[in-house]
């Protein structure tokens, strides 16, 4: 996925359109803050999630954090590769390291999130 074309949350999730579904992952900033990811707990396919609902858990050598659904939807699929290769989250956060895909998403909900420029500005406030 092209980071410029994604939408972002303040919890450092990204969401991007992929055909009929929306792909969700965590940002490069998030994976760097977490350090080496050791385990990812993914949601059940078919689960309905609300925006900001805890949907996945990412564990690193330093911490365990919740991953929230950026928008409401239904879990369409999960990245099963993370089960055996959690390091993909560190290596390729916007590509092979995606977490789950959502269907039944309202496009307007996604549009309401930060774009890449806003997210970078938000990151700049964190680094101050």
């Amino acid at each position, binding site marked *: 996925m092209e980071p410029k074309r994604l939408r972002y949350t303040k919890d450092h999730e990204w969401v991007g359109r992929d055909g009929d579904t929306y792909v969700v992952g965590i940002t490069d900033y998030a994976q760097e803050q977490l350090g080496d990811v050791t385990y990812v707990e993914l949601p059940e396919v078919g689960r309905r999630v609300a925006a900001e609902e805890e949907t996945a858990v990412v564990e690193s050598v330093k911490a*365990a954090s919740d991953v929230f659904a950026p928008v409401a939807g239904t879990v369409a699929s999960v990245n099963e590769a993370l089960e055996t290769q959690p390091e993909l989250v560190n290596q390729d956060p916007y590509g092979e390291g995606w977490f789950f895909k959502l269907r039944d998403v309202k496009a307007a909900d996604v549009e309401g999130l930060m774009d890449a420029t806003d997210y970078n500005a938000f990151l700049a406030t964190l680094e101050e």
Partner: protein
Amino acid sequence: MSWVPHTDADRAAMLAVIGVDSTDALFEAIPPEARLQSWNVPPGLSEMRVRALLGELAARNDTGRVSFLGGGYYDHYIPAAVDALQGRSEFYTAYTPYQPECSQGTLQAIYEYQSVICRLTDMDFANASLYDGGTAVFEAATMAARVTGRRRVVCHPSLSPTWRAMLDTHTAHLDFEVIDGDDPAGAACVIAQNPSFLGDVVDFEPLAARCREAGALFVLSVYPVSLGLIKTPGEMGADIAVAEGQSLGLPLGFGGPYLGILATRKAHVRKMPGRIAGVTGDAQGRRGFVLTLQAREQHIRRAKATSNICTNQALCALRALIHLCLLGKEGLREVAVACHSKAEYLKSKLAFARVLNEHPTFNEFVVRLPRDAREVVARLRGVGYHAGLPLACVGRGEANDLLIAVTEKRTRAELDAFVAALEEVACS
């Protein structure tokens, strides 16, 4: 390594760093009425007086009776090597040191404990232990709730009323529905016990299969020594095995300390509560031991931790490990066979009382006496016996029902003498 509490010099140094004159000054922010006024500690005594005082207290302990008491805690023989090894200063500390840099021995012992528990129960992963059997039952229930997303806990009639009472206490203020029965529909888990509280040995494989179909976990509480002889939780298809570990080298005491055993299948390991020791390699490629999967634990995961009990019974787990290693696979089987045959011998001699169990039993069974079991137990206490557990004491069965347990410690002479004493008291 040695563990020494703060000395006066340590305290003075710490107070100097924070710039406070005294410990009292440190606590000045706490209103005086909320501060402890007295520790109520008597004045110091000489070593000689302390020894005499503790000797008097110890003499009041009710030891030396021939015991047929069971109900979850059993009078097994403990080899002297268990005490000798656990008492070594490398192990015998006030607190369990977990830092891998200085605690390889402790961590390796915990890892080996986990390994023997897995072999004993035929499960994939065991934690570093919990407080006791009842706590393990509760933790298994919360674990099943995490795995299934359901809140109903079904207690099979075989489950110990003691474990059941502890489950009720632990869940009283939590969002759980604890019910009796064996219907796994809509349940997080069904919790059964083998041998049952009344001693029945049952193959729970069909119940495990029904749980699997209904999407519930099957939790089996077991008596570790019995696994030398009967089918294991793993063989029966249990998802979580729990046990009170007292029978593995822990002396009987009023209130413990005992040992909670919990083991599970690989699929559920991340939902398992408690500490886990793991094996790893250091920078030079040497084998080493560490605590692992700590992200599940309270100090990292805070309110969402798998458990808020973030300690283990390290010394008790060590005793269980030493005990099992001393026995070995064959030894455990021999102990189990001895328990079983001696119990069967006693059963065959109790012609004046009816054995109520309809299933085979391991080393414990229920007899209906010709008179009130509490009365019989009280009278036999006067002639040197702990005759067993009257079921009425735990709200089960009828007034005349007595739960009797027999371990490898009982000799034929003791069994014969007990039969005569019991007959005299129960039938006179």
